[in-house]
């Protein structure tokens, strides 16, 4: 069954989409999740829920996605292949579907060596491309990876990620293409801070006709402070933060750095809106998720269309 | 036994092309160095295997050192560089098993540098004297445990 999620309909109409991301709590207290959820309502088209991001234990992505659903927010469930084999992945997918979750972002995940439990055994039974194909098979053919029929007719809107800031452009574009062929219906990228580099990647994707088949939602990030920016650079794989960004933040007194970070984020959103081939923005605000509504408003992205 | 009376027994593996020549020269020009040093001639310091250093200590030597050519001048090109690494390896191992690292050392001595040979000999004698006798002196076997015979 084809899903008809809010995010899907917005992208299908060609409207510039807005998504944001939250990290589940390291514990069982979900008050902050509920509070932020209340703030997101009507401000974004969907909210991504990460899956043990940076290989560090957090509350499960599907649990927090359900909490968001209950609060009237449409979640995008992240599913990494790092921790669960194909049995557990398919199982969790079916469970998520039963709970009403339909947007699924399929990714490989950061390596355990970089996380808070480096001694854990890595799984990676599947990689992102294979998992995308498996989700598509479950949705379109109603069968598990082994060909057995499932009960029910789950609908999924399948997403994948791409990192535009890589060395071998051709190699990464081929991988992007593989994901789309396997079934990816939207792409979210790592935060764009270096427009030149991003444009080189985007233009290649456009040239290969990939943006026609699959909308690309460019990532943006609100950096709370120069210190946080410096830390993210080293702790998050694939995060590319140029020196100019750190310099701009450092030039401002500490108590004003958050505002500067928000300003930079808003500027970036506006630039991306004017860039051909970009289907939307995916906003991250690590440590300042409560500022997301403000960012969306300042970037002139409100009101969000009602496509129900 | 007090430290003043303790006369260390020190083995020195000296390479033929440089340091042994220096030792010879020291002898020829009547430059004295302590009799505590027992010189063993090797064709190159790179001939010294870590097991020689360990066996020397196991058989009761209070100290053992290797002398090779100046770096860059080794007759066999890299023998002295290999010896340097092996000596470092043995020193680390000694540290891990509770024996003073400084009982094993390496020096680079040019063929003509008799004074340096004598200086090193004197320095090592005093250094080992200060460290005291080999901690295993009480239970010195006549030779290390032998391998068993194969088929």
């Amino acid at each position, binding site marked *: 069954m084809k899903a008809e999620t809010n995010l899907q309909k917005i992208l299908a109409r060609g409207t510039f989409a807005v998504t944001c991301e939250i990290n589940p709590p390291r514990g069982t207290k979900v008050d902050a999740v509920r509070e932020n959820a209340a703030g997101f309502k009507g401000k974004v088209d969907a909210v991504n829920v990460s899956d043990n991001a940076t290989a560090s234990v957090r509350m499960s992505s599907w649990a927090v996605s359900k909490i968001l659903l209950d609060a009237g927010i449409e979640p995008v469930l992240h599913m990494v292949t790092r921790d669960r084999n194909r049995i557990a992945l398919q199982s969790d997918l079916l469970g998520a579907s039963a709970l009403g979750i339909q947007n699924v972002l399929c990714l490989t995940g950061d390596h355990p060596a970089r996380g808070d439990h480096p001694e854990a055994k890595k799984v990676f039974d599947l990689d992102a491309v294979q998992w995308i194909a498996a989700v598509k098979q479950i949705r379109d053919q109603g069968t598990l990876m082994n060909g057995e029929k499932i009960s029910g007719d789950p609908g999924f809107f399948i997403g994948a990620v791409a990192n535009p800031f890589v060395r071998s452009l051709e190699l990464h574009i081929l991988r992007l293409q593989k994901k789309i062929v396997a079934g990816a219906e939207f792409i979210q990228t790592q935060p764009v801070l270096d427009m030149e580099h991003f444009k080189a990647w985007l233009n290649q994707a456009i040239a290969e006709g990939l943006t026609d088949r699959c909308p690309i939602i460019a990532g943006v990030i609100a950096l709370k402070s120069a210190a946080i920016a410096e830390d993210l650079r080293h702790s998050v794989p694939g995060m590319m933060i140029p020196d100019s960004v750190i310099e701009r933040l450092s030039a401002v007194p500490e108590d004003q750095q958050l505002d500067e970070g928000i300003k930079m984020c808003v500027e970036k959103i506006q630039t991306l809106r004017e860039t051909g081939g970009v289907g939307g923005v995916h906003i991250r605000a690590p440590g300042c998720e409560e500022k997301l509504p403000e960012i969306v408003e300042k970037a002139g992205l409100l009101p969000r269309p009602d496509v129900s | 036994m007090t430290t003043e009376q303790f006369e260390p027994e020190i083995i020195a593996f000296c390479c033929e092309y440089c340091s042994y020549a220096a030792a010879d020269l020291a002898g020829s020009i009547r430059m004295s160095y302590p009799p505590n040093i027992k010189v063993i001639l090797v064709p190159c310091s790179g001939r010294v295997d870590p097991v020689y250093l360990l066996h020397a200590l196991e058989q009761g030597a209070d100290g053992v050192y290797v002398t090779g050519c100046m770096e860059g001048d080794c007759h066999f090109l890299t023998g002295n560089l290999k010896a340097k690494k092996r000596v470092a390896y043995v020193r680390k191992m*000694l540290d891990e098993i509770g024996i003073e690292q400084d009982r094993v050392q390496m020096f680079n001595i040019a063929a003509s540098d008799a004074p340096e040979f004598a200086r090193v000999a004197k320095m090592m004698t005093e250094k080992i004297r200060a460290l005291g006798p080999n901690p295993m002196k009480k239970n010195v076997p006549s030779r290390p445990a032998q391998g068993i015979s194969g088929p």
Partner: protein
Amino acid sequence: MIIAEHKPMKELLAMIEGFNNILMVGCKGCVTVCNAGGSKEVAILSAALRIARRRQDKPVTIDEFTLDRQCEPEFISWLDEQVKKKKYDAIMSLACSIGPQYIAEAFETVVVLPGLNTGFMGGTIEHGIWGEFCAGCGDCVIQDFGGLCPITRCAKGLLNGPCSGSVDGKCEVNKDMDCIWELIYERMKNLGQVDRLAEMIGAKDWSTSLSGGPRKIIREDLTL
């Protein structure tokens, strides 16, 4: 070959605590090549352990012997006579883990200790440096990757790599490690096979690997 290295001295000493009459057995196979457990290493480690124990006033006898290989029951049987005669209370094997296991099976009443940490299947990169090249998945498909193995050499074992963490051609886990997918890409360019990188490699059947349990290979034509 199998690459291993000797356990730290502290651990070896803790292992032989309480044993006074030990046989240390080396191996002339892989562990000789990677300087971990050949006759030289047996001489070095046994001397060091004897020195250490005498330093502690708890002398130990460590006899030394090196077999052609320890992964062959027939070679292990060469130890029979000596083990019976000398009545060792422990045998320390300096072979890869297969050695101590074979010795344990042959001498049921003698404690067997592994002197090495067995690492991986690999080869020489340069003198003194060995790297892992094969994970023993049981179904080799390196021809799909220009002759390189991503299961072993990609930190995440991706068959459809690279991942988003591959930055500047280096692996996200270790900046000193090349991203194998960049190397696979270069090779496939040289082979004129880049278009193959656009085809998805399907999910792997891991049942041929250790995942399916310890494996056996049987050659019916060679069994008697």
